[in-house]
C-alpha cells in the first residue's frame, strides 16, 4: 500500500485520466464512430453553457435546486442521524421500531412522489419531502450501523471510568466512536440528495432537474450534459466543503 508520495503525482494522473476520457469522446464523435444525435461533442458544451448562463436560466435553476437540496438535506440528515443513533444505542427503542423500520425503510424515496404531490403539492415543500425521506434512511442506517459496530471494549473502558450511564456513554463513546460512520453516511447523503433533487423536479418543481428534462424533451443533449456537469460541480463543492470539516473532526484517524 505504498501511497504515492508526491503531492503532485495524483492530481496530474487525475488530469491525465480526464484528458483521455474527453479526448476519446471528442474523437469518436468527430470520426463519426458515435452518431452525433446520441451524444453531444465535448466541444459543444462550452457554447451551450454560455448561452444558458447569459439567459439567466442557469443561475436560476441552481438557485432553485439548492433551496430544495439544502432544506431536504438538513431535515433528512438531522432526523436520520438522531433516530439512527438512538436506535443503535437503546435496545428497547430499537426493538419497538424494528418492525416499522422494516416496513418503511425499503420504500424508496421516489415511491413517495405520489404522496408528495398529494400532501405538499408541486412546489418546494413536495421536493423537500422527497429529498428528506431518502436522505433520512441513509443517515439512519449509517448512524445505526456505526453504533452497532462500536468495539464493546470501549464501553467497558468508559464504564470503568465512571461513564456507565446512558448520557455519559453517548458522550464519551457512542458519538466519537460512531463519528466516522455517521460522517460517511452524511457524505453519502450529500450525493444521494442530488438524485432526489432530480427526481422531485421531474415532477415540475423548478430547478436543475426540471431544466434538464426540458432540454431533453427538445433533444438538446448538450444542455442535458451541461446540467449533469453542473450537478457534478455543485456536488464537488459541497463534498469538498464537507471533507474539510470532516478532516478537522477526524484528525485522530491520521
Amino acid at each position, binding site marked *: 500500500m505504498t501511497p504515492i508520495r508526491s503531492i503532485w503525482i495524483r492530481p496530474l494522473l487525475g488530469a491525465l485520466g480526464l484528458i483521455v476520457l474527453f479526448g476519446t469522446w471528442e474523437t469518436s464523435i468527430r470520426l463519426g464512430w458515435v452518431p452525433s444525435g446520441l451524444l453531444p461533442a465535448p466541444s459543444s458544451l462550452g457554447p451551450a453553457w454560455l448561452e444558458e448562463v447569459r439567459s439567466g436560466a442557469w443561475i436560476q435553476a441552481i438557485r432553485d435546486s439548492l433551496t430544495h437540496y439544502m432544506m431536504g438535506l438538513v431535515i433528512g440528515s438531522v432526523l436520520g442521524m438522531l433516530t439512527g443513533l438512538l436506535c443503535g444505542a437503546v435496545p428497547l427503542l430499537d426493538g419497538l421500531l424494528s418492525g416499522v423500520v422494516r416496513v418503511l425503510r425499503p420504500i424508496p424515496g421516489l415511491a413517495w412522489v405520489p404522496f408528495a404531490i398529494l400532501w405538499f403539492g408541486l412546489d418546494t415543500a413536495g421536493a423537500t419531502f422527497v429529498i428528506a425521506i431518502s436522505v433520512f434512511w441513509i443517515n439512519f442506517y449509517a448512524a445505526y450501523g456505526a453504533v452497532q459496530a462500536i468495539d464493546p*471494549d*470501549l464501553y*467497558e*473502558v*468508559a*464504564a*470503568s*471510568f*465512571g*461513564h456507565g450511564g446512558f448520557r*455519559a456513554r453517548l458522550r*464519551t*463513546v457512542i458519538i*466519537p*466512536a460512531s*463519528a466516522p460512520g455517521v460522517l460517511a453516511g452524511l457524505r453519502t447523503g450529500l450525493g444521494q440528495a442530488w438524485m432526489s433533487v432530480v427526481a422531485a423536479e421531474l415532477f415540475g418543481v423548478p430547478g436543475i432537474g426540471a431544466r434538464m428534462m426540458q432540454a431533453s424533451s427538445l433533444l438538446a443533449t448538450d444542455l442535458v450534459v451541461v446540467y449533469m456537469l453542473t450537478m457534478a460541480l455543485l456536488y464537488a463543492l459541497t463534498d469538498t466543503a464537507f471533507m474539510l470539516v470532516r478532516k478537522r473532526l*477526524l*484528525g*485522530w*484517524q*491520521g
Partner: protein
Amino acid sequence: MNTVVTDKAEMVASTGDVVVRLENIGLSHDHGRTFILRHVDLEIRRGEFVAVLGPSGVGKSTLLRVIMGLIRPSEGTVSLHPSPTAAHRPAAMVFQDAKLMPWRSVRRNVELGLEGLGLTRLQRHERAMAALDLVGLADMADRWPRQLSGGQRQRVGVARALTVEPDLLLMDEPFGALDAITRGALQDELLRIHARRQGTVLFVTHDLDEALVLADRIIILEGHPAGLRGDFAVGARPRDNTAPGMRAMAERMRRLIAGEEDPGADAAYWQASEI
C-alpha cells in the same frame, strides 16, 4: 474439589472492611455449557494489595472484568463496597491491552475518568499531566494513541487509572510490556501511592517475582473451569525475596500455577487448610 491452599499466618490487612466480596462466582460464555470460572469465593479488605497469578488463559482478566461489573457472572454474586470520597472514582481499571480511545489525545485519554467529577478544565488538565509525568510520558501528551509504542500505550492506561485515585484499583498485567527499569520505577511509584492512600489494589501479573515485590497477598487461579487454588499472605516489608521462606513459598505457588499438587508447607511458616 474446592481445595484452596491458604496461608493466613501473617495476614496483614485482614482487619479492614471488606471492599470486594465474591460469592460462588461462575462464568460461562456459552450459556452454561462450559465454564471459565466456577465456585470462586473471595473477600478483599480495604488497604490490601492483592496479586492474582495463574497460567495464561486461565481467567484472570475475566475475573477482573467480573469484579469491575463489566460482565455479569453466570452464577453467584459480586458485592463492592469502595469508600466514597470527593473528586475521585470508587474503582478504576488498567486493561491488559491498554484500550485507549483512538479519537482522544494521550492527555484527553488520561482525563477520561476525571470528567464528571466536578473538576474545572484546568484541574483536570493538571491532574492528567501529573499522572503522565508519573509514567514518564508528559512530553507525549498531545500525541494520538496510534503514535505510541506498545509500552507507552500501556503506561497511558496506567496513568488514566491512577489519576482518578480510585479506592479500588484493578490492574491487568499493567507492566507487562515494560523494560525492567521503567517497570521498577513504576512499581515503586505504585507502592508509594498505595502506602499513602491506603487504597485497595488487585493486580494481575504473570510474574511471580513482581507479585512478591508488590503484594501483601497473592491468590492463584488454576484449572478448567478456573477456581481459587491458593491464597497466600506475604511477609511484612522490607522483604527479602531470596530468603529461604520466601523461596519456599514461591516454589509452592509455582507448583500451584503449574497445576501440580501442593507440596505442603513448612509448618514453621504456613499451613494449608481446606475451606
